[in-house]
């Protein structure tokens, strides 16, 4: 989807159209840019950039708060459209998806025609622009959709992958970030073509297995990491976490504890959405001076109940917080997932069972009225805006460890 968060905000406030818009928060708040309109990008603003930096680059931009519930809803509409075109849809994030179109020629026609039909259907039904990349591999499809932006369609004809990739910067290859880019530059590799010309053995000697994968990627193959997986194959998360950075460092115990409760609720909600039960819960605590500690607790039996998570996390906090020290960031992570509660409960009237029922009801309310519809009283003071980039749970596809602002491109 093109500038997804911004486009969604424009649906709700058409006056934003054509202007420099930054989604993510107020200009002087701590936090990062979730998305920037194409007009704002002209000034160098991009996602994941600190809001204050964005303001320096583009002081006249309109800064708006993000609305995760809106994005999730639109993402689900997008999925609804995609699903009609192929049964194999994988949401890679809240605004990116892969479709396996194999065997749909008789239904949708040749690749370009199918893409145009999809492009129009998307605009008609969601009022949002998207860009479509078509290719024989997932990797090239992703890169070509990036090249097609905004609002375009690009087909890389089979056999032409290497030629298509060659003139692009190495950074365009999914998985190549700042660090690898720097490393490659130091080896004199700047374009994907430079990479493709190199010997696999050389890349492996310099970069290990990742080098081998890169060699494949440079030729347009889906090599390494999750690019190997089938489209539509659901990948289960290994951990679920949420973090919160305070707008201003705080040592207010009430605020800290309720923030932890709120984070536990968010983690618990995720666990239930994925049908996971965690054996281990971990507290992350970062002080003003960036000194960071993590402390974990293992449960007797795995759980997905908010109150059980939060009572342990708060206990960990009380035991480990340097009383009075100002806190910059709190995080809660659940891991060591069991298939479920193997052990059957003995006590039907058990608190645990009752909480499970209550939370199931709360989840239904949140599905209908949004995430903040219901909350534990202990977490009310800890309410803050969530930042959501990943695929909404419930849709097939990739589920990242939740809550961290994922890499995000429009």
């Amino acid at each position: 989807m093109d500038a997804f968060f911004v486009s969604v905000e424009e649906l709700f406030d058409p006056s934003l159209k054509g202007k420099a818009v930054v989604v993510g928060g107020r200009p002087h708040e701590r936090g990062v840019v979730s998305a920037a309109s194409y007009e704002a990008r002209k000034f160098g603003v991009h996602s994941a950039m600190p809001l204050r930096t964005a303001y320096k680059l583009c002081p006249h931009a309109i800064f708006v708060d993000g609305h995760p519930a809106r994005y999730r809803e639109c993402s689900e509409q997008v999925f609804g459209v995609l699903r009609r075109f192929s049964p194999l849809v994988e949401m890679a994030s809240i605004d990116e998806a892969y479709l396996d179109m194999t065997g749909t020629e008789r239904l949708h026609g040749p690749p370009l025609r199918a893409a145009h039909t999809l492009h129009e259907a998307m605009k008609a039904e969601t009022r949002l622009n998207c860009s479509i990349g078509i290719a024989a591999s997932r990797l090239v499809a992703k890169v070509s959709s990036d090249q097609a932006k905004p609002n375009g369609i690009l087909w890389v004809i089979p056999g032409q992958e290497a030629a298509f990739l060659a003139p692009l910067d190495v950074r365009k290859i999914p998985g190549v970030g700042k660090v690898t880019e720097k490393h490659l530059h130091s080896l004199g590799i700047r374009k994907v073509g430079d990479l493709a010309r190199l010997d696999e053995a050389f890349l492996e000697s310099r970069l290990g297995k990742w080098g081998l994968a890169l060699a494949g990627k440079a030729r347009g193959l889906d090599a390494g990491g999750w690019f190997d997986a089938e489209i539509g194959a659901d990948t289960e998360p290994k951990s679920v976490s949420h973090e919160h950075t305070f707008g201003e460092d705080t040592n207010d115990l009430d605020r800290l504890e309720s923030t932890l409760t709120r984070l536990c609720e968010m983690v618990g909600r995720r666990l239930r959405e994925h049908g996971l039960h965690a054996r281990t819960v971990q507290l992350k605590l970062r002080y003003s001076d960036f000194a960071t500690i993590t402390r974990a607790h293992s449960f007797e039996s795995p759980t997905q109940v908010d109150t059980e998570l939060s009572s342990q996390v708060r206990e960990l906090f009380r035991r480990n917080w340097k009383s009075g020290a100002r806190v910059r960031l709190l995080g809660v992570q659940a891991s060591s997932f069991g298939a479920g509660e193997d052990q059957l409960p003995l006590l039907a009237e058990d608190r645990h069972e009752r909480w499970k029922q209550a939370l199931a009801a709360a989840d239904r309310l949140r599905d209908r009225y949004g995430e903040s519809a219901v909350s534990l009283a202990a977490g009310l003071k800890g309410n803050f805006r969530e930042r959501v980039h990943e695929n909404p749970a419930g849709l097939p596809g990739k589920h990242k460890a939740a809550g961290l602002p994922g890499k995000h491109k429009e």
Partner: protein
Amino acid sequence: MEFTVSKADLVRELSLSQGVVEKKTTIPILSKVLLEAGEDRVTLTATDLELGIRCACPAKVKKAGAGTIPARKLLDYVRLLPDAELNIKFLENHWASLTCGRSRTRIAGMSRESYPELPQMPEPIAEIPVQVLSSMIARTSFAISMEESRFTLNGALLLLGPEKITMVATDGHRLAFVEKAVEAGSRPFRALVPKKAMAEIVKLADESGPEGKAVLAGDDNHLFFQIGDRLLITRKLTGNFPDYERVLPKDHVHSARLNRDEVRSAIERVAQFADERSRAIRVQFTSGEVKIYSSSVETGESEESVPGEYQGPELEIGFNAQYLLDFLRAISQSDVSFELKDQKSAGELRPAGEGLTDQYRYVVMPMRI
């Protein structure tokens, strides 16, 4: 304050108080033992605010008074002294001076003013032989939940009546119930005893000898166990203990009778190959034998067969091996009866054979297999 005690007496009483002294030194005074000298004895008090203990030993008191000394440090030091008389004198600055033979030591103490006041023991409710009490604790305390968030399950239910005494513990997955008929029992009384207090009661019972009695009393918030000269005070657990009577099965469809040692060692061996976290084993009941097996992707698989009487259809049920072993290790009888209904209903274990004097029932929920 100044007094003289025998080193052996002091070590014994100090050891009994160690379990109660707070380990984490969040409140410095709670890591101290309070010593009070008066008449011809010195009284030792330790507490972590949840649990308190008061014991005493004979002393030659030169000057009555009170003071506090770090409990751990005092015990560690006194233990190393030769068996002899030990003189303890508190100085102006709350330090304690210890003299024993040729050894002299001064330990940093604190004023008694900041030491918390323990509640007074009210009228006794009942007198229970310590053996009865500690054997009931041994058969139930392992079923207490370790999960701190489930605070009503962090102890055992103690029920006293005119004709019987009952103790029940559960962690939500299994439940241990033991009931003993007693003559001339007490008026009805009901309380939740925290797990930590139960461990201390067992220690005091061991120390008091087989004929000892525990005098029980309670106020709104506390329980008092007077065992000989020693008094244990614990905060009651609050909250509603689950309705255990609903959990105890009324009827069982099928029953197996096994030799306890055979089935216990079979499970111990098989459990080596159970999943480390879930501890799941499968128990298969067939005519004339019970098969136990386990398998784990990482470690391997294991199988045992135990001969036994069983009538009923073939049944295979998953259990947490630890739960079964806890019970099998707690009983002294030669046989065990295993009663069951199906894969999803609670199974019940009971001791069988000679020497059954009280009712002991252990209910375990299966695991999904």
